Every structure is written in structure tokens, then in C-alpha cells.
């Protein structure tokens, strides 16, 4: 059974590029346009990994991570940040919120898949 990944980004192109890379590697992909929409998809479905952008309208990525970590079903779901932000203070905010990795865009699909494989529990 393939593993499912939730990807959150307000940029359709980034969502599609990431989805192509992930689906090509055999993952199932569910996507959301911002943090609030993503919280609506944390409805009991199992996600093996969540990938989120930081700067998004309605609800930013850091707030989403904090809210997701409050949900018992998703407390231990690994979350990776995929963003253009490379500022160390922002990274620290992400780490404090509960992110497990921080990948700066633009990304190489191979590197994304490598990080995903490392974060997803066997």
C-alpha cells in the first residue's frame, strides 16, 4: 500500500511539481492551498508526511504546524517545511513549532525524495 503525503502551498506550480516528483516515486499526494484548508483535511485520514510552505494567505505554515501538533491524530506525523525562506530565525521558528526538516525552494526532485524517504517511518 502506497504512503500518502499532504502538501500545502499557495503556489499551484509548486504543488504540481512536488506532486509529479512524489507520484513518480509511488506516493499518493493530497494537496491544500493554505494552512486553514490543510487543517480541514486533517480529518482522520492517515498521512505519512506533511509538507508545508511558510508564506501563505489565510494561515501561514508555522501557524499550521502549531495547530496540527495540537491534534492527537497528527501529533507524531512528521512535517517538512518547503519554502523560499532561508533565514535562520524563521528556521528556528519552524523547529520550535515542530517541523522535522526545512527545505529551501527551488528544490531538486531527487533531494525532495531523499528528504521524504528519510522522514517517513518505514
Amino acid at each position, binding site marked *: 500500500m502506497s504512503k500518502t503525503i499532504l502538501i500545502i502551498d499557495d*503556489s499551484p*506550480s509548486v504543488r504540481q511539481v512536488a506532486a509529479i516528483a512524489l507520484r513518480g516515486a509511488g506516493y499518493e499526494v493530497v494537496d491544500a492551498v493554505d494552512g486553514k484548508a490543510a487543517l480541514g483535511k486533517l480529518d482522520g485520514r492517515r498521512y505519512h508526511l506533511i509538507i508545508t510552505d511558510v508564506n501563505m494567505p489565510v494561515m501561514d505554515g508555522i501557524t499550521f504546524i502549531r495547530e496540527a501538533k495540537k491534534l492527537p491524530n497528527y501529533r507524531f506525523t512528521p512535517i517538512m517545511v518547503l519554502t*523560499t525562506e532561508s533565514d535562520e530565525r524563521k528556521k528556528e521558528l519552524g523547529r520550535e513549532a515542530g517541523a522535522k*526538516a526545512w*527545505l*529551501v525552494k527551488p528544490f531538486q526532485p531527487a533531494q525532495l525524495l531523499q528528504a521524504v524517504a528519510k522522514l517517513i517511518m518505514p
Partner: protein
Amino acid sequence: MVNSTVIPSQTLPAWGWISAVIGLVGGVVVEVISGFSLQGGIAGLVLVALGGMAGLWSNRQFIAALAAAHQRGWDESQTKNDNSGTVADLERICLEVLPILARQVETSRSQTEEAITSLVARFSAIVEQLQQVILTSQSSVGHLTDTLHGDQSGGFARSEQRLLGVVNNLGTTLASKGRMLNEVRQLTGQMEVLNTMAVDVKKVADHTNLLALNAAIEAARAGNHGGGFGVVADEVRRLSRQSGETGRNMGQQVGILQTAVATVVSSAEEAAAQENRMMTAAEETIRTVLSEFRTTTGRLADSAKELRQVGSHIGDEISDVLVALQFQDRTSQILAVVGKNLTALRDQVQAHASAREQGGSVSAINVQEWLAHMELGYSTKEQYRDHHNKISQPPDNTDITFF
């Protein structure tokens, strides 16, 4: 604007008059002290003249200073008026231009985003179709490879075996017919034996007839005593003639049979030879067709493999293009911040203009604070570099941090 400087009237100030009066008084005092002598008079006139000259010089100095002061005051007033007009113009330009720039930036951002999103969607569809083609091709190539190089249960080998089995069955049938033909040939030999036997029967009949004739002659010579024997001899002669006739008929029938069998054997041999040639040709044809089919399927497999490789290469290229198209996300964020800053600047100018027009106190703008506030909205390294006017560089390679 026309310079309409008004110079004050050239009136001698009080201290100028005092200088002249002091000179005049000094001259009178010298006249009195010198007892109105000639020298005293000259000295007094000199003092009076000096006093007057001092007064005139003072007056000119005063006028010049007054004119300069007036001019300076007028200039300051004019500068103030000019600055006020310039600031108002600047404010108007900013209030008109900044929203236009903000809208144009937003239009550029949204159009780029829309176009790139559409482009990415199309490329995504191409990638998915290519992956599907590659999968199908891989499956076909695998099937063809199995067919061409698989074990005996493989499709191609099985087909070849079946077709050659048909040829072998034909060969077996022909062999069976050949054996039957040999039997018929042997029957021809038996016919010869029968013919010889028929000839022998005729010879025996002729010989018996001759003996019966001799017996009849001897019976006639014996007279009445030989009458019965003569009847027997005649009967034997009749039988021998019949036997000879039967032997002759047998020979004729065997000859007819021999001719018929020879004809059948000849036809069968010709048919067998033709069938052998046909079977050989069929086997050759089957082998040729199978060989051509093998060559064709081999080429097809090579073509499919090449198609898969090319498709895979194109897929990689498109994936690289998709990765490159991620620039849109960065430029979109940069342009969004530019638009936001233009709007904020417009609001700042509007507040400044409103305060100035209402005659209220216009608070000074803290430029450094403004710049620092702008910097807070940045998310990419390019924005920081551009903000600090450093050499623009492409985005860094992918950076990943595990916590």
C-alpha cells in the same frame, strides 16, 4: 517668478548723523581751543569733513547691510514657497504613480503566475502521459523479449513449434503413403507370380490335352475294349482345353491388373513427389515467415526500447523544466512584497499630504525605520541582496536542514 526686490530709501540713520555732528562739534572745539587761529580752523574743518565722511560711509554700509538682509529674507521666503510647491507636486505624483505601479506589479505577478501555472499543468500532463507510454512500452518490450528469447513455453517458440508440427504431421502422412505405395509395388510382384502361374496352367492344360489325345488314339486302336477309355480321354481333352482357356483368361486378367497397378503406382509416386516438394516448400515458407516475424518483432522491440529511452529522456528534460519553473514562486513572492511596499509608501505620502494641507504638524519620516520595516517582509536572499544593493545572484542551491 519675477524678482521684485524693494530696496529701502537711502536715509541716514541716527548714528550716521551723530558721526557728522561729532565731527562738527570736534571742529568747533578745536577752533575754540586754538583761539580761532588759521591752523585751528583748518583742523576744525578737517574734523567736520571727516565726521561727515564717516557719517556717509556708515550710511552706505547700513544701506548695503539692509539690502542684503532684505534680499536674504526674500530669498528664504521664496525658497519656502518653492519647496512647498515642489513637495505638493511630489506628493501628487506619488499619490498618482504609486498605485499605478502597485497595480502593474500585481498584474505582472498574477499574469506570470497564471501563465506558469498553466504551463506547469500542461507539462505535468505531458510527464504523466510519457510515464504511461513508457510503462506500456516497457510492458510491450518485456512481452516481445519473452516472445523472442523466452523458453519453450514462450509465444514465439510455441508458435514455431506448432507450425513445424503441422509440417511434421504432413511428413508423417507422406511417409505412410510411401509405405502404402511400397505395398502396392510388392503387389505388382505378386501379379507377376500370378501371371506365371496362369502360363503354367495353360502349359499343363496343353500338355494334358496332348496326353488325352494320345490316350484317345490308343483307345481307338484297342477297339471295343478301349471305348470307355476313349470317352474318358475325350473328357480329359475337353477339360484340358477348358483349363488352357482359364489359364489364358487368368493371364489376361493379371495383365490388366498389372497395368492398372502400374498406373496407380506411377500416379501415386508422382503425387508423393509433388507432396514432398510441397511439404519442403511449406516448411521453408514457415521458417522464412517465422524468421521475418522474428526480425520484425526484434526491430519492434528495439524501436520500443528506443522509444522508452527517448521518452524517459524527454521526461527527465521536462522534469528539469518544471524544477526551473519554480522561479515563479520566488518572483511572485518578491513582486507581492514590492506591491505591498508601494501601497504602504502611497499611504505614507497620503498621510503626509493630508497633514500638510490641513496645516498640522508634519511628523518626520524615519527612513531607517522604513527600510527596516521593508526588510521584515522579505523571504528570499535575492530581496536582501537587492535591498542592500549587492550584486544580484541566482538562488542558492537547494538547502535542506534536518531538525
